[in-house]
């Protein structure tokens, strides 16, 4: 026992002036298996705007143990291309939209290999669009979606097109400068939310962050949600660092978008109420299906109106 006491004394003395000692634990990585049956993941938008095409993206969820991308070898005009393409894109689905009078079959529009950006292959995903010119959605119409895939999965959806926004151009000033305060007027919608995005053309092409020697018009780009029943917005440049930056002639773009309930719930309401939140995984959930039956994602519709005001120094 005396030996034991001396041994303990020695050990404690040896460690006394050191810090707390730990032994490292080696992480053991293991494959994750799940019995998840992939579901169709849809983004479908019917647009009543002539400049924005209606489209549908058809993806599927991936299990935890399957590869994300497939390696593709393609030869076009004697040039061999080797690239990865995402597995989650479904390119051979049957996608049909209908306004209950006519039906329109959308075709998969792939990317052009010659324009392919090998640095960011995940951006080169296609969508289903209508290649004809007789599809003209109008506000108030009910549009339905039907998707079937060769492996037997199917999704249906429905959306009611919102009224088209109407910016009161006559109430806008002829020009805009740094100190201007504008009261924008537009038609209020009783049942739909709208979003107004304002920005100057220069800031679209010039980085948004503040620099001493830049000529960007910092603080002009803003987004506001316009709730049901609201018919005006007071707009002025927001504070953005040094106010003495030079001004150039520019164009202030006012972009107003109306959305149906599905679009609103997916992009605005759903994002605020994640089913699950964890530091390690992040937010997530079951994906959510809005305006859809049989899949996740959403099938919504939009309308757009635009106005422009010249910006003067």
């Amino acid at each position, binding site marked *: *026992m005396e030996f*034991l*006491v001396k041994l*303990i004394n020695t050990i*404690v003395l040896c460690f*006394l002036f*050191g*810090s*707390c*000692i*730990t032994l*490292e*634990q080696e*992480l053991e*990585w*293991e*494959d*994750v298996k*799940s019995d*998840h049956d*992939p579901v169709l*993941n849809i*983004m479908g938008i019917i647009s009543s705007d002539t400049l*924005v095409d209606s489209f549908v993206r058809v*993806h599927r*969820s*991936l*299990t*935890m*143990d399957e*590869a*994300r*991308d497939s*390696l593709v070898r393609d030869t076009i005009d004697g040039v061999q291309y080797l690239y*990865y393409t995402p597995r*989650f894109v479904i390119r051979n689905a049957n996608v049909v939209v209908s306004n209950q009078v006519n039906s329109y079959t959308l075709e998969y529009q792939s990317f052009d290999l010659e324009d392919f950006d090998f640095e960011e292959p995940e951006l080169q995903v296609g969508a289903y669009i209508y290649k004809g010119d007789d599809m003209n959605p109008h506000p108030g119409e009910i549009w339905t979606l039907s998707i079937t895939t060769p492996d037997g999965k199917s999704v249906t959806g429905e959306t009611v097109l919102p009224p088209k926004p109407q910016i009161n151009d006559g109430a806008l000033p002829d020009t805009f400068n740094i100190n201007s305060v504008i009261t924008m007027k537009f038609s209020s919608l009783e049942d739909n939310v709208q979003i107004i*995005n304002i*920005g100057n*053309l220069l800031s*679209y092409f010039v980085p948004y962050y503040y620099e001493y020697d830049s000529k960007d018009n910092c603080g002009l780009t803003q987004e506001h*949600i316009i709730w049901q029943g609201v018919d005006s917005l007071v707009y002025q440049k927001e504070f953005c*660092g040094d106010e003495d930056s030079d001004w150039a002639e520019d164009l202030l*773009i006012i*972009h107003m*978008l109306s959305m149906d309930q599905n679009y609103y719930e997916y992009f*605005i309401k759903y994002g*605020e*109420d*994640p*089913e*699950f*939140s*964890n*530091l*390690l*995984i*992040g937010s*997530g*959930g*079951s994906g959510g299906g809005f305006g859809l039956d049989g899949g996740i994602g959403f099938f919504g519709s939009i309308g757009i109106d635009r106005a422009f005001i010249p910006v003067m120094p």
Partner: protein
Amino acid sequence: MNYIIRTALLFTILVSTLLSQVINGFVRDDATGEPLSYANVFIKDSNIGVASGVDGYYALTNIPIGERTIIVSIIGYTMITKDISIKEGESLRLDFRMSAEAIEGQRVDVFGEAQKMRQLVEPSRISLDLRTIETAPAFIEPDLFRTIQMLPGVQTINDYSSALYVRGSTPDQNLIMMDGITIYNPYHLGGIFSTFNTSSIKEADFHAGGFTARYGGRMGAILNVVTREGNTEKFEGSYNVSSMSSKVLLEGPLPKLYGMKGSWMLAGRRTYLDQFINLLVRGDDLPFRYYFYDYQGKVNLDINQDHRLTYSRFYGDDIVEFSFSDTYSEYSVVEDYEQNEENTTHLNWPWGNKTNSLTWRWLISPKLVARTFLANSRYRFDFNFGLQQKGDWREGSESGTYNEKFEFDFYDIINDNTIETELSWHGIANHQIMGGFQIKKVEYDLGMDFEFETLDTLISLSPLSQKDQTVESSLFLQDKWSLTQKIVLQLGGRFMDYSEHDELYFDPRIGFKYLAKEDLSFKLSLGRYHQFLTIANPEDETWRIIDFWLGITEEQKAPYSDHYILGLEYLSEDNWLFRCETYYKHFENLITLKQGQLFTEDESGARFTPFNEFYPTRAYAYGLEMLYKKTAGRLRGWIGYTYAETKKHIDKHGWYNPKYDRRHTLNIVGDFRVIENLHFSTSLQTSSGQPHTPAIGRYQEWEVNNDPYMPFYGFTEAYLVGKKNSERLTPYFRIDMGFKHKTVGKILKIPYERFFQIVNVTNYVNALNYQYRAKVNRRTGETLGIERAAVPMFPTLIAFGYRWSF
């Protein structure tokens, strides 16, 4: 006529109780003057006996007149026997000073446990003295909460937290008190340590459920930590240094003045992990600036033998702070340009508790004791971050200066002011009646401020500002009625008024005990427990550093829980206590924070509302607990097993098991005296895996960039998660060991103790959660499936230190 008869009867009872024979007084440790609780005080050859209370007070009533022998005994102390003579209507004040004795294991020494078993009606109650707290091997230093976590019915969420999850109740549902003062965030280092310095603890009274009407305002468990009073005989102290912190304890008597006497105690500790790490990390590396400290003091003043005043104060803070600056200069002769700039960054983040209390104890009569208590408890955290960039420039003939400052402040303050009075009355034979009132005013202040300043502009924003004030007023009454020698009934009730609600709440509390034999008892407890405050922390958070306390609003219903507990206790002749309990609890009107919802946008605009949106929730919990405990002898410790389940319900998820649900839990704790002054301690903790929400797939979350030129639609990768908490992590397993050796220094002859501890001896990987990553083919760069690894809790940790006494 009836009125006259009733009044006469009442007067007769009153006079008879006042005139009956009473012996009362205090039982204290002779060496230190500390009160001894659960000392057995009884009249020889009679059924008259009682256990001393937490403050050492006892009162024996209805003593038969004549020559009697009074006996006082408690484990670890020499028994006292005293012959007395009692006359009719006499009250005798007898204070006892007991001397500690070294002999353990004798039958007479287990009277402490036997007394508790005989006297306590409510099940699920455990008193822990310092020796019990120090039984289990500890991480760096003994910790009260970590010891309690090894008791049946108590769960831990992970190694980094000492928070208590008791029988399905969350930490905010437990009332944690120090000398009766509520402590709102009783943790240091995010929960790795509790805020209680064990050097200053006399004992801790823990009720896992079924507590009496005396306590209210919480649905789960009660923990009241009673601190030492201070040595009334001489000045003494101890100093403890370990690899992480130092502790000091000083105590002594007050100078006697005008016949008044008393004692004082002062304890403090500070970590120096920041100093240690900064010594090892040199150069330009960012200094490590985290430390915590706390101190507490207590002063007791006996004005006379019937009046005592006690002042108690606690202050503790965790602090993260750093500040650094750098300068920048640029000069160009060719361009005739120069610039000088200084950038400063600072972070200051204290969080902690401050309490003050004043208690007046008045022995109105031998059978009537009053205790009045005034207390303030404040918890706050204040996260302050700032950046400053200032400088000057010159270009040709032009020049200028600039100074930009950004400040961010996020704070939460809870301020609790309480006044309460308790009366304990032993006036009626076989009844111990207690009643009182409490008024608690709580102020909440939660806010966030931004400030941006330049030479000519100042912008201030306060996106979050929630202030509230609530008042809880309570009235309670309880009676512990010994129906027979074997049957005790404890009936009580608590009336509560909450300032935000119009209704008056009533919580009944019923306790029943049947003493089948001297060493075997059965207990039953039923009760309702309301609560008027909650915390707004995310339910799925992995590590909680601070709590966000909020009062229940006018619109929300008051949460409550009903407890049903049945138990038995058996004390064997060789000092083993066996306890078996089963319980069922259900919870109504709970609320669970909607996670991730930082902003709410509606007709009034966008508001920062991280703590405003809740899901209505209900829950239930049930379980079976067994405890085998040995408190005396060369080997001490306990074995605890729990089978339990907790389920919560939110409409969005349905019924699910929360993170703290464990089906099976086994804890074995032992302290073995190898030789005199050398102790070996060990603990084994194992439990079923913790529920977690699994990632079951991958998908794309659609995104939109509402660019004014053209909306752009894209996506980000996300994990598809399964049903909430539908899978379990790997089972938890950990073995800790430690040695403690007491000796006397050869040079200065100062007694000291050295200790050596190993946490997680087997280096078993206990999973905190899973982390995920894409599996990549290293040859081709192809992204394959997903793999995961456990985020580990404590690895093997070795700690050591010294403790000196003087």
